[in-house]
Structure formats: C-alpha cells, structure tokens
C-alpha cells in the first residue's frame, strides 16, 4: 500500500497492522525516518514537503514494482508525509514482509534509497537563519547506485 498524506501517522500502529496482515511471511523489516532537529547549518524549526499529486504516487508505485521484480516480497507498505513537519515527527515509513530476512532487508533498503533519489518529493528546511531546498546528498546517490551496479553484475 502507498500513502502520501499531510496527516501524521503512528509508526507503531502501522507496523502492528502490517505485520498482522502479513501473517505467514516470517520476516518483516521496517524503516522509519523522522525529522531531525539539527542540520549541518543549525537548528531545524520545520521541514516543508511538496509533491506532485498523482504523479508522485505513480513514481512510488514504479519503485515498488521494481522491488517486487528483484525480491520475493509478500507485501509492502510505503507512507510519506507531505506539508509542514516538526522535528521528531515521522516523515517516511517503509515496511516489507517476506519469507526470508535477507530479501526483506534488501528490499526495504532499496525502497528507501530510491525514495530518496527517485520519488517526486521536494523538501525545504526551515531554520532560524532562513530556509533552503534540500537536494539528495552525494551519499544518497551512491547508495542508490549500488542497486544499478548489481543489475549489471
């Protein structure tokens, strides 16, 4: 399931519903991203996230389709907040259920790398001293490139 929403979500409740509906899977990996209160340049007061309704959801669905092609996945859950978020608020959550832990770990890792570099979100950091749009770090592109390397090996 893919959910892009301005509504806050409760990571514990999401994992609970997901793992129960994934009975039989054996392995469930979750990733939760929370807004960090500190950035390189100072204290973060808030994040503001924009998306392209419809197009963003389809860009995530395409990423999820790629994951299902590569790994034996029983089920996935992808939640992404948009709008204004305060420090420590959950911003993104990815859950993957699979028969085997290696597949669940790799698929969740892949989904996060691609959500960071391919999914259509734009993130503005609002600090005491101003605001700026964030772009993926070099490390994010490197992380995402790992999976492309794998494809050609």
């Amino acid at each position, binding site marked *: 399931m893919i959910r892009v929403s301005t509504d806050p979500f409760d990571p514990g409740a999401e994992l609970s519903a997901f793992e129960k509906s994934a009975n039989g899977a054996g392995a469930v990996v979750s990733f939760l*991203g929370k807004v960090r209160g500190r950035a390189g340049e100072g204290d973060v007061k808030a994040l503001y*996230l*924009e998306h*392209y309704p*419809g*197009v963003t959801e*389809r860009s995530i669905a395409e990423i999820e389709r790629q994951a299902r092609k590569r790994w034996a996945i029983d089920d996935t859950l992808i939640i*992404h907040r948009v709008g204004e978020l305060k420090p420590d608020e959950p*911003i*993104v959550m990815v859950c993957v259920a699979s028969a085997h832990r290696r597949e669940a770990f790799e698929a969740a890792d892949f989904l*996060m790398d691609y*959500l*960071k*570099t*391919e*999914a*259509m*979100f*734009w*993130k*503005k950091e609002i600090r005491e001293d101003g605001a700026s*749009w*964030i*772009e*993926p770090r070099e490390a994010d592109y490197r992380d995402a490139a790992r999976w492309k390397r794998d494809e050609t090996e």
Partner: protein
Amino acid sequence: MARLLFFGKLADAAGARQRDLPLGDAQTVGDLVSALGKQEAALGAALQEKSVRVIVNEKMAARDSAISDGDEIAFLPPVSGG
C-alpha cells in the same frame, strides 16, 4: 493557454507554484523555456538547468517534446524525499 507547474526551488524562481500562460509561438518545451527566459532571465536560467526534468500531462517529456494549448507542463528540480 497552458498550465505551468513549478516545484521546489523552481516555484521560488517563478514566484508561484502555478501559472496559466498563452503559448504564443512556442511549439516545444524548449521554445517555451526560451520565451520565458526572455522575460525573466533568472527563471529561464533555472529552468534550463540540466537537472530539471519536465513532465507534460503527467508523462515524462524532453526539451523537444511538442506542447499545445490545454497542456499541463510541470518543471521538476532534483527530488529529495524521505
């Protein structure tokens, strides 16, 4: 008339997230960007960056993609989710 959408830092450059604009002589995305740049140099330069992707009517497009009245033309800077 076409609907232009600007995301992230491009909305700052355009001063709006959305703009309805007569296409005039512009027949491609590239034509439209050039025409905009003649009026607003900073916006034109921002849209011309190689990292900016274009989506026409919710489908990935290129600089030489044809555009016509009624199209929704979105300009996307590098994404940053998660």
